């Protein structure tokens, strides 16, 4: 079934120059493999569309059951150059919560 990412993870986002970074944290340790499978750089790039001009890079933190996503050229120039309201990507994490992922219902139940 298709559910929003918010079912299995929470996020926090910010900036490094023109890179938006999103930390994606599994609500439960056993959801971490679902993050690895579903939250791929390609899908995140497609989800954000023209907002993100460069590639999406993904790093894994198994000790925190979390991913770090770096959205290159994702902030319209970044810092003080960007003309966007959210020039620091503070709301990008919230946006990503709405990305739909594919899971088996059994993966959600204890």
């Amino acid at each position: 079934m298709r559910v929003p990412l918010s079912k299995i993870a929470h996020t926090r986002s910010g900036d490094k120059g023109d890179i938006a970074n999103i930390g994606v944290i599994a609500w439960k340790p056993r959801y971490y493999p679902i993050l690895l499978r579903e939250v791929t750089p390609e899908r995140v790039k497609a989800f954000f569309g023209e907002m993100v001009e460069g590639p999406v890079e993904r790093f894994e933190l198994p000790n925190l059951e979390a991913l770090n996503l770096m959205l290159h050229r994702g902030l319209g120039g970044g810092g003080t150059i960007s003309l966007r309201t959210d020039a620091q990507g503070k709301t990008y994490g919230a946006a990503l919560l709405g990305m739909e992922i594919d899971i088996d219902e059994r993966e959600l139940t204890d």
Partner: protein
Amino acid sequence: MIRIANGQGFWGDWLEAPVRLLDGGPLDYLTLDYLAEVTMSILQKARQEDPSLGYARDFPPMIGRIAKKLKERGVKVVANAGGVNPVSCARAVLKAAPGLKVAVVLGDDMLGRIDEFLTKGYEMRNIDTGAPLASIRDRILSANAYIGAFPLAEALATGADVVISGRCADAALVLAPMIHRFGWSADDFDKLASGIVAGHIIECGGQCTGGNCQVDWQNIPDLANIGYPIVEVEPDGTWVVTKHPGTGGRVDTHGVKEQLLYEIGDPRHYMTPDCVADFTSFKLEDIGPDRVRGSGVRGAPRPPMLKASISYDAGWKASGTLVYTWPQALEKARAIDRITRQRLDQLGLHFDEIHSEYFGFNACHGSAAHPVADHAEVQVRIGVRSSDKRAVERFTREMIPLVLTGPPGGTGYGEGKPSVKQIVAYWPALVPREEIQTRVEVVE
């Protein structure tokens, strides 16, 4: 064990936080972080206009307010409030709080050495774009190397009540008391890295104690009285993140994880002037109410290059807004965008970028915005950027006339014509460590 708190995550943070950290329970060190990426350029400008300025002006009155308690409790302050003028900052602190001993760390300012560095062949390419610094040489406003925790620890060793630096790595403020008290050396990579991870967690103040946190946010207790973070650090480098009893907010592993991931790059190589920390190496656990323990952090030797924060003049910008309502709110707002662009085009003005967004529809999430069927209200916001100040000034006259010459029902122009702002942009680069010599001075 020592207790280190952070009472300011940025210049402009909650003014009550440092006071409450002192009043609310035991504490050994109070760190205050004032410098964001472009703050140095703002301070450089202030110093050009008045040679006695160029530091975080909030800081001396804050110390004046808490000086008596600092002395009574024996709490030491470590702050990067010095900006581009730490000595003047120290003098202002002594004026506000006579009787305190103040030490400053100098040597991060490299504005006067840019040409020397370029001549030596240091290209100082922009870490993000790869462009050489020479391409913006004549527009540089400030240049500072990020210094590490060791010079700050050296300043604490003078017995100072207040240590003031200019540009330093944010987490170094928190690491410095550990080096000072536990006698860690430059090759204690794992311990240094553990201190850096603790510093990264608390450097944004309340953002690790329940602020800006998605974890059941509606039920985070009493954010009005949020407790700012404290790390209790053991001599072996392990730590517990907590807050004073009876304060609002919440400390748990999920909230701390959010902050650990905040504004980082490759988690295996978190670069600092003192070590490289591996954010994938350690264990995080809830060990009690509002107590999160971290252990097992691994580190690697410090990098040969220091990061530098350079700022430069990047032209001008302005943005204006108008509000439209149901019916056809979004269509009307889009018409404003179309007509404004056409009028600007007819004037033959040059802009590097014109950017339009619609609050209520897509202002923050853009192409990833959640769809809405029929908007009650939409605010259109148009921003422009140009190296030609006159073009930006002319833009600021173009939006308000649309209330009478555009689609029906325009409002929300109450603030009048938008103001034109200079863009001071950030240029991160690398410089060889050996070029940056720090020194500590006690200011009497």
